[in-house]
């Protein structure tokens, strides 16, 4: 019974560890904005902690670089389960604009299993709060793959024998 209560409380108080593995710090500043009074995210019980051993969620920002890949993996393994990983920003979701440079391995999901993606460059603080709300189940996902098709139609071929306006024969 206590176990169920503890599981329910997981969503009410998420402790967050912020790990920037080589990004440009744009998303860092947006994450910092989310903790300010204007967009206050502490009203959901979310707190920034300094040690991965205390944290439930790792906010990954920046692509996985060659130099920081092992450090990122060690920080992920230091977190006690149950744990989540959020990939914030285009760099963490898919490698970003820098996906083919010499030092970038790729998106963060090449190293860690990612639970939620929050794309944007950088994502607005409201977008980050929306991502957290989707993870907590407070909001619905608004995005789905779109596939559209142009209709095919028959194109009449031009034969030299057809009478053409204004030409002879």
């Amino acid at each position, binding site marked *: 019974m*206590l*176990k169920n*209560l*503890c*599981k329910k*409380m*997981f969503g*009410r*108080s998420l*402790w967050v560890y912020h790990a920037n593995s080589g990004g440009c710090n744009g998303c860092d500043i947006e994450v910092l904005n989310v903790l*300010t*009074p*204007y967009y*206050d995210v*502490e*009203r*959901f*019980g979310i*707190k920034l*902690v*300094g*040690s991965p*051993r*205390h944290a*439930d969620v790792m906010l990954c920002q920046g692509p996985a670089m060659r130099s920081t890949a092992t450090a990122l993996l060690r920080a992920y393994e*230091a977190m*006690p*389960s*149950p744990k989540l990983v959020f990939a914030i920003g285009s760099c963490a979701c898919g490698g970003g604009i820098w996906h083919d440079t010499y030092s970038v391995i790729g998106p963060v999901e090449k190293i860690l299993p990612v639970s939620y993606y929050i794309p944007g460059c950088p994502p607005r603080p409201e977008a980050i709060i929306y991502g957290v709300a989707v993870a907590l189940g407070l909001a619905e996902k608004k995005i789905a793959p779109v596939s559209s098709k142009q209709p095919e139609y028959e194109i009449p071929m031009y034969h030299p024998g057809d009478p053409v306006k204004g030409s002879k024969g």
Partner: protein
Amino acid sequence: MNDSVIITISIGLANIVMALLLAPFCQGVMRKVTAIIQSRKGPPLWQPYYDLLKLLGKEDIESGDSPVMQRAAVYMSLATVLTIACLIPMGLSAPMNSAGDVMLLIYLLTFSGICTLLGGLAAGSTYSLIGISRQMMIMIMLEPLFTVAIIVGAVHAQSFRLDTVLDGSVYMNRGFPWSGVIMLVIMLLSFQAFVERVPFDISEAETELMEGPLIEYSGPKLAVFKYASMVKLIIYSALLIDIFFPWHGGISMPLQWMLFWLKIFCLVLLAALVAATHARYRIDQAVRFFALLLAVGLAAVVLAGFGY
């Protein structure tokens, strides 16, 4: 005979149970007041309960240099804090009143600080070692302050018994209690340091990014440490109120108990206001501050010896 035993036991239990259940609530009040001063909507008042319950449900990773000492530090810390809670009257008389005297209280208060040191030592990482070295410096300066306050009370009350000393003893007897007033000012100035809040929470959460001695704890052990720190807030507030402003002459029973808890909330509010408007001190600034207070406190003991 049976009735009085039951009544005594239930009074004692009511004493402690109230304190233990309300400790996270006081922390919640502090966080909410901090949020209001920072012009934002803060966490709900019951947030520390959710935090503790969530931490209890997480996996427990044993890491660091010596897992045995890690475990021992956690359990000893909780045990010490609960024992102190049994020794202090909180509105009603303390359940373990006759188990010891004032000296036991002083040693237990010091021991609860040592448990954090042991926890940091068990982790063995650089951050925790820096944290515990700073905590040691603060403890050297701070524990004598509380000891001096209690001794001033003991000198005035001419006894070392717990229920006499913890009963407004600094104001007892002849003349205007100069030493009592001096001790009151000193204790109010250093209250923030005892309860480990800004501006003096130098060891824990200071390397605010790394949490100092608690860096390697996770899950249930972290929950116990956080809970011990919350109960310390209540214990020190109760000690302050019992020694300096009990003021319960002539008020009947349930009202007196509620008045006590009202005073505790006022102290918690004061601590929250000071914590929200100040920055954290450096270790050398804090040591200088406490050295000054200690000198004045020793002068107050001398005055108490002379009967002032």
